[in-house]
């Protein structure tokens, strides 16, 4: 009981600290970077969504390593669960964890809509909130629902990993084209004075590659967890 009281007290202190720090956050709203991005973001990158502009152009170096970390996480999960052989799950006589009918029916209805929403978020990363990562996560959710509709579903995890590697290579290469065209690495490959309308080709290409990378990485992690039961 005393441990619970200490826990609640600690959370209470955290809560008070949070409210005290809210006062000081006012300073954060007065920085110049925000104004700079607001003024030049659309012209520099061709993306009306300034978050995407920062992630895929100004701070692309960070985003590359984010995608890389996801890839390394997949390798780690697969290495730990050792799925280098032909996998199969036993067919159950007594399936106590059968998915409820309502959930299966609803999943069948939601699956195409979710897939469409994911592709919409990926392709409109330069216009609406979202982008490669968010859209990829939504597409991955749609794919995962298939496993609840049909638990017997088999996946070749090595094929997914092979595709993910090439997707990541594609991201790095697309980001490096600017070294030839602009003489500057990890930025938009269109010329600096190109019209804004043509600059977002780069944003869309990178969004699609990152979307593929994220969706397949999450799919591989989920499959590894699904097969892990030994």
């Amino acid at each position, binding site marked *: 009981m005393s441990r*619970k009281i200490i*826990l*609640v007290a600690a*959370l209470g202190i955290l*809560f008070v600290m949070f409210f005290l720090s809210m006062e000081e956050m006012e300073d954060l709203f007065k920085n110049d970077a925000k104004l700079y991005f607001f003024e030049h973001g659309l012209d520099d990158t061709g993306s009306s*969504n300034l*978050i*995407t502009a920062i992630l895929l152009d100004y701070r692309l170096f960070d985003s590359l390593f984010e995608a890389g970390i996801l890839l390394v996480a997949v390798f780690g999960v697969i290495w730990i669960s050792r799925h280098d*052989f*032909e*996998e*199969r*799950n*036993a*067919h*159950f*006589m*007594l*399936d*106590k*964890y059968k998915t409820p009918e309502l959930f299966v029916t609803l999943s069948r209805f939601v699956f195409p809509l979710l897939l469409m929403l994911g592709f919409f*978020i990926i392709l409109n990363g330069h216009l609406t*909130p*979202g*982008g490669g*990562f*968010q859209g990829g*996560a*939504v597409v*991955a*959710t749609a794919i*995962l629902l298939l496993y*609840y509709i049909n638990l017997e579903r088999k996946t070749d995890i090595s094929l997914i990993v092979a595709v993910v590697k090439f997707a990541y290579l594609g991201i790095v290469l697309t980001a490096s084209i600017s070294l030839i065209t602009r003489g500057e690495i990890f930025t938009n490959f269109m010329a600096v004075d190109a019209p804004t309308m043509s600059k977002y080709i780069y944003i869309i290409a990178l969004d699609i590659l990152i979307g593929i990378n994220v969706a397949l990485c*999450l799919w591989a*992690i*989920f499959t590894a*967890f*699904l*097969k*892990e*039961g*030994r």
Partner: protein
Amino acid sequence: MNDLMWIDIIAYVLQFMLIAIAVVVVLQKNNSTIVLLVVAFSLVVSGLYVINHAPDVAIAEVAIGAAIIPLIYVISISRQREFIVLDRAMDDFIISNNDFTGIGYVLLKRFTDYYHLELNICNDPGLCSWEAGPDKVICEKTNVDLIVSRDEEKGVYQLKGKESSLLMTKLAQMAEDYDDIEVHTFTERGFGE
């Protein structure tokens, strides 16, 4: 009262909900309830992100926190709590009179109840008649915990499982009372081999 103040009130309510959910998650014992509470936490957080003008982060939070993580947790929890038995004997050891009343089923049920596990018996035709698979290989390559088979020469039923599993020791103890049941274990290959 203008719109801005309403948003402030909603934000405060969501922040209090966040703390309440966090406390309940820590105090809660049931795993399924915890998963649902984690989902609720993610949804509340994403609502706060939207209020604070970060729709990009909110979409990521909903997709990861409220969809993928609970799906992974549900699978992991259900796999963790089940004890999978492969029935290669295919006679009345497990099922007699079309019901789970066989002597082996009673023993395994008592054993899994002792550890609060869910007993899950499978007789996958593909696995049972798998020529390339001696029992050790089946145990390594599938998610089966225990294999039941019949030794025709000795006329006994054999229960085989991994040596590393502590459960096998207890099962061997429980099976001592039965004359026609033997418990065997085999060593697995080490991690990373």
